[in-house]
């Protein structure tokens, strides 16, 4: 490793640490999506009746739609603080590779939003009477799916960060890109709940994740440059 490799590694480590520290000191950004999830999952049985078989039938779809909306909520504010306090300008001017920096920011964001959702998803699923046999597949789909949602959400967040009211626009930009995740992730859980093999859907999700990891940072970097230029 050359000296500059060491410096890039140290920078990415420092960025990850900084983002996690910030999330720790302002836990509301992490807790809000989880509370939202809990609220919706609590309301569904009241809305469509407590019949376990009926709930179980809808559970995969409900869980994934709520995960999608929670992720949308979390994505919006991702670069907001950095934009407003000028850190983003410093990031763009720094000699460090923006591609890797974008990836690190997204990883930090996923660690404080997607990962808690993945870990708590069995609890929420049990509230919706999802068969226990489908829980491992649900967690696997959440693990892969929320990571894709974080990457795609970051693109929207980067593009709209300079807008005062970016909320609606970010939804329009990223919801169409969320749809494949919804279809295959909910499909995997439905297959598992019905006793079928969910492997094809999970592999497709894994493929989508690989694609998103490779390509999304380019779009995030470009989005950040445009937003700072416009600011």
């Amino acid at each position, binding site marked *: 490793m050359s000296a500059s490799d060491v410096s890039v590694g*140290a920078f990415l480590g420092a960025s990850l640490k900084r983002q996690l520290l910030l999330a720790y000191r302002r836990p509301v950004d992490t807790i809000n999506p989880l509370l939202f999830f809990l609220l919706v999952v609590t309301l569904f049985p009241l809305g469509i009746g407590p019949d376990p078989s009926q709930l179980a039938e809808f559970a995969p779809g409900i869980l994934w739609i709520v995960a999608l909306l929670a992720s949308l909520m979390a994505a919006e504010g991702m670069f907001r603080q950095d934009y407003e*306090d*000028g850190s983003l*300008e*410093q990031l763009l*001017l*720094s*000699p460090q590779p923006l591609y890797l920096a974008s990836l690190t920011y997204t990883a930090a964001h996923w660690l404080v939003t997607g990962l808690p959702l993945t870990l708590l998803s069995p609890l929420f699923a049990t509230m919706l009477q999802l068969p226990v046999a489908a829980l491992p597949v649900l967690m696997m789909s959440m693990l892969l799916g929320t990571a894709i949602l974080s990457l795609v959400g970051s693109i929207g967040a980067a593009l709209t960060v300079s807008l005062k009211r970016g909320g609606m626009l970010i939804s329009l930009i990223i919801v169409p890109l969320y749809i494949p995740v919804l279809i295959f992730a909910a499909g995997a859980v439905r297959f598992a709940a019905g006793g079928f093999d969910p492997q094809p859907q999970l592999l497709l999700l894994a493929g989508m994740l690989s694609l998103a990891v490779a390509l999304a940072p380019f779009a995030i970097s470009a989005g950040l440059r445009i937003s700072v230029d416009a600011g």
Partner: protein
Amino acid sequence: MEGLDLDISAGNMVLIEGPNGSGKTTLLRSLAGLSRLGLTGSIARDCDELLYLGHRAGIKQLLTPRENLVWACRSQGWNPDTIDSALERVGLSGRADVLCQHLSAGQQRRVNLARLYLSFEHQHPRTLWLLDEPFTAIDRDGVTSLAATMAQQVQRGGAVVLTSHQDLPLDIPLRRLVLGGAA
């Protein structure tokens, strides 16, 4: 802003003046390469390194001065072991581990200005400093010490471009660029 032809070379100290809204910040951002929208014409830059301090403080309220500066150093590829001396230069050594949200406006500006001392320590002598209102909320002693650092930077072959509404307590040659009235 039209018909602007500016040539900044090593050893220059340029003060951009003008009323609010005359484009001082826009010009600095363009020089830094942050802003290209609405720019017709070209900017050629041939300096080794660049340091830009914008009017936004660039520091996190929920981090301490030290934590802020560690990231600032890492983002530039500098070793953070000189942070203590930089914090001492800006008079914050006793407050290095207090969250920035508990610091006054002037102290928060000082955290940002500590980057100048870090840059002086780590960056190439021929670094171009672009400073947007560096003296805002800084007391008189702070201004004197900052201006002295800028003078040193210019004398060692760097260049400084700054905007300010106050006069600099300096005895080195200063180029003034006065931008026109507000649009």
